[in-house]
């Protein structure tokens, strides 16, 4: 919200173009603010997400071990149960896996990967979706046609299938050395590809409406650059549904990454994300090594849950119908 109002203010708008009342934005913002503080679940979710995010990004400083450094793994310390167990050992609070990898450290690093991939894929999908949606809605014609047809095709294949195909094809055609380095970017791309369409459709619809309005026609007449009109006027108008969708998609993206890694087409075992950890731990379900699978699962569920709770609250708060 803040960003859009900044853009509105910062833009060297011509007097002909009516300034969107920034007060309205402010009011909404304060509405939102109020709504936030009156929803305990939203506060709880935000606090949880903040905690998880901060610890994940401080992982290199606070985790007892670097789980990605093969040289730091000591097989003698493998399969240690959590600290409260009689065989637990300091500093392995949540125990170790079969390679002697500290589970807590692996979870912190894994959460960081999951959050980064989720966030980056949403940003990528958002930027592509907004750009293409604006172009399609504003210019119409063949550009619109091509973009929306590509979108139709993407939406006619199940989300998860596209993501799996992209990662599978990429990993089949890359040499081993590059595969490890590119694992995260490939996942980001794979998750973003099927999800930009939703943003594009939303923006396009509102751009089509706005593009016909008089002020835009007038702005065109005095040769205000198209991208400026789009950025300053059309975009802010459809930010609300976009923000809700982006938040909910953030949760979905984290889930997708975990699913891909669980299926074995995501992050490799030497740079485990939460999904990879669950996949590895799943092999030890019956060996009594429950902590390898349980703690990463809990962490994953907490992250997605907090994101979804925020998304849900945001949607309800921004939807006047439900208020």
């Amino acid at each position: 919200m803040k960003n859009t109002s900044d853009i509105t203010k910062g833009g060297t708008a011509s007097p002909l173009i009516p300034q969107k009342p920034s007060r309205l934005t402010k009011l909404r913002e304060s509405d939102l603010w109020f709504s936030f503080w009156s929803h305990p679940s939203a506060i709880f979710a935000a606090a949880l997400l903040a905690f998880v995010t901060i610890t994940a990004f401080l992982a290199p400083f606070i985790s007892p071990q670097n789980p990605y450094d093969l040289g730091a793994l000591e097989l003698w310390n493998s399969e240690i149960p959590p600290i409260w167990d009689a065989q637990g050992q300091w500093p392995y609070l949540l125990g170790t896996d079969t390679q002697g990898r500290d589970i807590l450290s692996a979870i912190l690093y894994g959460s960081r990967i999951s959050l980064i991939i989720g966030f980056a894929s949403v940003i990528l999908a958002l930027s592509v979706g907004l750009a293409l949606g604006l172009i399609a809605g504003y210019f119409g014609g063949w550009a619109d046609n091509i973009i929306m047809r590509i979108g139709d095709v993407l939406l006619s294949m199940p989300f998860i299938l596209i993501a799996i195909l992209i990662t599978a094809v990429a990993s089949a055609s890359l040499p081993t050395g590059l595969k490890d380095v590119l694992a995260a970017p490939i996942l980001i791309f794979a998750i973003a590809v099927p999800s930009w369409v939703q943003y594009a459709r939303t923006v396009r619809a509102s751009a089509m409406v706005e593009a016909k309005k008089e002020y835009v026609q007038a702005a065109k007449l005095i040769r205000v650059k198209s991208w400026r009109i789009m950025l300053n006027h059309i975009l802010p108008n459809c930010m609300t549904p976009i923000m809700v969708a982006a938040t909910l998609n953030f949760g979905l993206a984290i889930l997708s990454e975990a699913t891909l890694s669980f299926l074995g087409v995501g992050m490799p075992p030497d740079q485990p994300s939460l999904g990879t950890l669950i996949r590895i731990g799943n092999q030890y379900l019956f060996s009594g090594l429950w902590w390898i699978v349980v703690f990463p699962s809990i962490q994953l569920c907490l992250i997605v849950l907090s994101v979804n709770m925020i998304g849900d609250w945001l949607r309800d708060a921004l939807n006047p119908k439900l208020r």
Partner: protein
Amino acid sequence: MKTRNLLLISAALAGLSGAAQAENVLTWGANRDIGSLDPYSYGDSFTINVLNHVYEGLVRYDKDLKIEPALAESWEILEDNITWRFHLREGVTFHNGNPFTAEDVVASLTRVSDETSPLKGNLPAYVSSEVVDDLTVDVTLNGTYPLLLNDLTNIHIFDNEWMTENNALKPTDIGAGTEGYATYNANGTGPFVVESRQPDAKTVFVVNPDWWDEPQHNLDRIELTPVTSAATRVAALLSGEINFTNDAPVQDLPRLAAAPNVKVLEGVDLRTVMIGFPFRETLTTGEANPFKDRNVREALYRAIDLDLIHQRVMRGKSRIAGATIAPEIPGYVEALDDLPGFDPDAARNLLAEAGVPEGLEFEFNCLSDGLVNEEQFCQAIASMWTRIGLSPKLDVAPRAVQSPKRTNGATDVYTLGWATLPLLDSYSPLLQIFHSKDGNAGVFNWGDWSYPEVDALIDAAGSELDLTARLNLQTQALQIVKDEMIMIPLHQQPMAWAVTENVADMPLFSDNKPRLWFAMVDSDS
């Protein structure tokens, strides 16, 4: 509409009652599926092992892994020393009712030794074969060769007529653009008949009532289901959904042994797990290849804490090995089992002396569906090598993905497990792994090494008919292999099968091959 529904229901009921009949069923949960119903389209021990229930060879291993007559009743070597005459068993029929004759043997040997056959290395000395009469075949070899019978235990005999009718005289080759008939149809002489097959889901075998031999089993039906996930396999066993697995995960053995309805069968496999090195000029990264230097190989050897892997990854169930063959295999002497000792400092020094750059990157190729706990010991070894200043890049994938890379030399360091099958003799690894690449020799020489003195010893052994002299030559060759550290042996891997309580008898074989024609289940279940 009504009648049609009735029909459907009665059909369903018929199916139900069929399944409800008291049958002795063995549900076998394997860790992977067989590659094909055609033993010649997929050179892989497990596939051949399973298909051995359907197809048979001229000779076979008995319960003590000694060779005994099967489709051939007797044999002799003719005066020229290179032609073997086989007298075939009379009255044997294939599952389709065709009689078994000499024509079938010739057609099968031709098929397996075809240029495109992935199994031609399993019959290295074969030159040609000839029908003498309906029940006599002459097999000509390229020289005197002591191990033909061992080879023939795993050369399955097909029906010539059936192959001709179905255009299956050549090994299945999908490059030909047609489905190979033999990949999803089978017609052997063995104790079981293939009833149905859904790849990766279920393959059903039913007993062959017309088998020529006296059955020592009481099975009516075998259902082979691949259950790739170790945890699921254990769950299925505990709940009785499967009643046999030939791969019980070692980490779950205590849990299985504690379960009241499960019996664990444990032993040490003959399979020796080894690590192989590239001997090419460059690594896959394009850098110069330091592994050609024996001292570098020694450094990598000494960096591995074999005892730790034995204790942790293999849970004390493996046997640490210094030799590239198991003690049971002819050709083994104790001196071969000496270990250089774990010494990371010495390893670092060796690397420094050899001028290996710090952080040298190389690929380390492992299978996700290969040896026992392969992924884990590969990770552990990669971590040990990292600690002496190398940067191994672990590449773990299924066999089907890794095999082409390994055979084409498109990787660097790799794992290999060798059980000397089907020969059960040290000649097997010597010829197939340690010999220079040359025709049928060195098929598994993936690193592309060549030691003329080793080759000479192997070639001499290959035509030596005196057992002691032959084994002596083989031991000498193995000693050079060891001194040169061509490959690093790690251990003989543990072998763990598990059955539910209603399986009365399931003999465990040290070659880790289930032979269900010796299995008994309780009839009342």
